[in-house]
């Protein structure tokens, strides 16, 4: 069975270590906050200008002046701080944010990522995605392995306009966990019940399979 969105988020949450500062993108990455393992302390950064993001508010605590990068109302946790967007991107560009998790339309076997523009269809802009992928130490992509027509989104070369070049380190898709290496996508784990052959078929880029590939355990 392919992973659902929550399972992708659950698997990615295991990549986060105690003490990490983490930036979560919009979509599946936002769900990762729900699965951070107990007993570890993680500080969430929102690139519009805050550290220490908390859960969504209630109707009683909602404040129009307190939103995340997806423009959703949120709350803050003890120890939070607020700052301007230049300081926020100094944290990102300066390598102070440990992990960045974001979605993608396509990833290439060289680690290029396309996530912001579909010519003729979606032209809203890149927001902070280009800054994040160009500078984060550890970039994890949450994505579907194929599009609705069943075509691979893990490619030799991206076909859509790029967000960044050679920057993606790890991918957690609905089918597999993979690392981007110099030789291509290295298969690390399979979704439960999904075979290496199925993953091979869904991957247009070079897939490296070494030894037995374990199933993701939940």
């Amino acid at each position, binding site marked *: 069975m392919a992973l659902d969105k929550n399972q992708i988020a659950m698997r990615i949450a295991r990549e986060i270590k105690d003490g990490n500062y983490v930036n979560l993108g919009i979509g599946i990455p936002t769900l990762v906050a729900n699965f951070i393992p107990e007993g570890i302390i993680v500080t969430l950064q929102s690139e*519009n200008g805050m550290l220490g993001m908390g859960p969504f508010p209630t109707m009683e605590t909602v404040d129009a*002046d307190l939103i995340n990068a997806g423009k959703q109302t949120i709350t803050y946790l003890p120890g939070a701080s607020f700052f*301007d967007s*230049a300081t926020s991107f100094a944290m990102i560009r300066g390598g102070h944010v440990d992990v960045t998790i974001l979605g993608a339309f396509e990833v290439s076997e060289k680690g290029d990522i396309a996530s912001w523009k579909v010519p003729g269809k979606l*032209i809203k802009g890149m927001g902070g995605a280009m800054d994040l992928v160009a500078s984060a130490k550890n970039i994890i992509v949450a994505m579907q392995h194929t599009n609705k027509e069943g075509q691979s989104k893990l490619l030799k070369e991206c076909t859509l306009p790029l967000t*960044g070049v050679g920057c993606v380190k790890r991918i957690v898709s609905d089918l597999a966990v993979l690392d981007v290496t110099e030789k291509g996508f290295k298969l690390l784990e399979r979704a439960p019940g999904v075979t290496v052959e199925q993953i091979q078929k869904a991957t247009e880029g070079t897939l490296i399979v070494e030894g037995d590939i374990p199933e993701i355990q939940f």
Partner: protein
Amino acid sequence: MNKTVKNAKEAIEGFKDNMTVMFGGFGLCGIPENTILELSKAKVKGLVCISNNCGVDDFGLGLMLNNHQIRKMVSSYVGENAEFERQMLSGELEVELLPQGSLAEKIRAGGAGIPAFYVPAGYGTEVGIGKESREFNGKMHLLEHALTADFAVVKAWKGDTAGNLIYKYTANNFNNMMAMAGKITIAEVEELVPVGELDPNFIHTPGIFVQRIFQGENYIKRIEQLTLSK
């Protein structure tokens, strides 16, 4: 020095066609509502607007867009409104999209007197087309030039008559840098107090960057994505 003006109408004195203007805010959070509304009633047009976003159809910069007062937008994320997309696709509106962090730093640099700087964001993408690039520490970077404006319009939570500003939560966003980068900076605040009342240890924007300040009224503070805990 008292920098107080009476209201938005007095604050926008000197706005001319084809000027470059910065507007603080991220989405609809921390936008200078009063000044935008006043400008949307004024005749000024052909403006080049630098703002992270462009409001929504009937609020924020969307109001000026509907009146065809904006010739060009410099932003990182746009198109939360149908009219924006229509004007962009028909060629009525010129749009320059920049990575959000590069946009923020270009504004900061403009205010800080740094003409240009290198960043890795956008290298190898269409953002890099026509820009100088250079390798530092084994990584490629793009040369980004600073931005300044004829007017910068910002919104703060509290301010004093010397122009010192304090923002609330994430409503700081682009306001702090933009205040630095305007030849004339207009600050509208929710609460304007006499000098001496704000604790100088907690000022975000020092008054030197602000030329005109007034207490705004009837803040709507519209929420774009009301999201509540389940």
